[in-house]
């Protein structure tokens, strides 16, 4: 009986490990709550938002993002300056050791330039995030309002 329970527990662990790999957890960085707004126009850029959680003991950096949803994908930040909100590209997005960085409207975001298809509510968009230490992390971005 004891042996059967052990097998069940091990199988469950294996299933969990497999699921964890495909949902954006790898090498110490977890990506969650990834979403993007439906696109108003095909010829305008889209923005994707998410939470980057660094489980490691050293700072990591999001260096770039790849995906077939857009011709060019950049990292951008909206900042206030002189009462105005200004958006500019940033070279990378740091994620503190054992901490998190939130990409959210009015702040940091992944900018999708030259959309290859419409961002429609309910769709999922696959992106690959490249981190300095954690390497490639696949993410499914949900399109919603």
């Amino acid at each position, binding site marked *: 009986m004891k042996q059967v329970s052990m097998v069940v527990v091990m199988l469950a662990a294996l299933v969990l490990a497999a699921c964890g790999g495909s949902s954006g957890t790898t090498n110490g960085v977890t990506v969650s709550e990834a979403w993007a*707004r*439906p*696109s*108003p*126009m095909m010829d*305008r*850029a*889209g*923005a994707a938002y998410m939470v980057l959680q660094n489980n490691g003991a050293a700072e990591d950096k999001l260096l770039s993002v790849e995906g077939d949803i857009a*011709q*060019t994908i*950049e990292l*951008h930040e*909206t900042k206030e*300056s*002189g*009462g*105005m*909100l*200004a*958006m*500019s*590209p940033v070279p990378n997005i740091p994620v503190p050791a054992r901490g998190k960085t939130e990409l959210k*409207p*009015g702040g940091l*975001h992944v*900018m*999708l*330039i*030259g959309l290859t298809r419409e961002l429609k509510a309910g769709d999922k968009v696959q992106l690959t995030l490249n981190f300095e230490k954690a390497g490639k992390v696949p993410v499914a971005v949900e399109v919603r*309002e």
Partner: protein
Amino acid sequence: MKLRWLIGWMLIGWLAACTHNFSGVAPNPIGPAPDFTLIDETGRPFQLSDLRGQWILLAYGYTHCPDVCPLTLSYLRDVKQIVDPNGDRVQVVFVTIDPERDTPDSMRRYVGHFDKLFDQKFKGLSGTPEEIAAAAQLYQVKYEKKETGSADGYSMAHTAEVYLIDPQFNWRMTFPFGIKAEEIAADLQYFMQNPEAK
């Protein structure tokens, strides 16, 4: 003594019922809203005061804006949905501060994404750089072209407030960027129920 307590509690109750914590900031003094004429999303001249008789939610932005402007317009869509989903009491007006790139057609397509739920369509206004500069200055809107090196071309830095104009065409309130739809809707509903409120 008991009577004094009773009166005190009644006063507190009365004040609680009558006060409303506004999320927006009222201009001091409240006065006529500045008026301007620009080109609407159909390519025709449009004067803001043509909307006299309706509540106007006025915002400035640009269609190459993937972050701030969709946030503002989705909030204004939600305000309309909360306060006046089937009616024509509340109108949303979006004015470009990027006259170099934004045409009536791009304004139509951009605002048309946010007004799908409503019979009454949002207005998307554009104009010449001079006309836009004048219309922005009237509401103390600041904007600036920024070459950022992005593949998306230049970006526009801009103030991102929302202005509320009442049916008598008075400028009633300014909402700072980031004030949520529910908060704007609560202020608007309070004004609708208490037209004399300041």
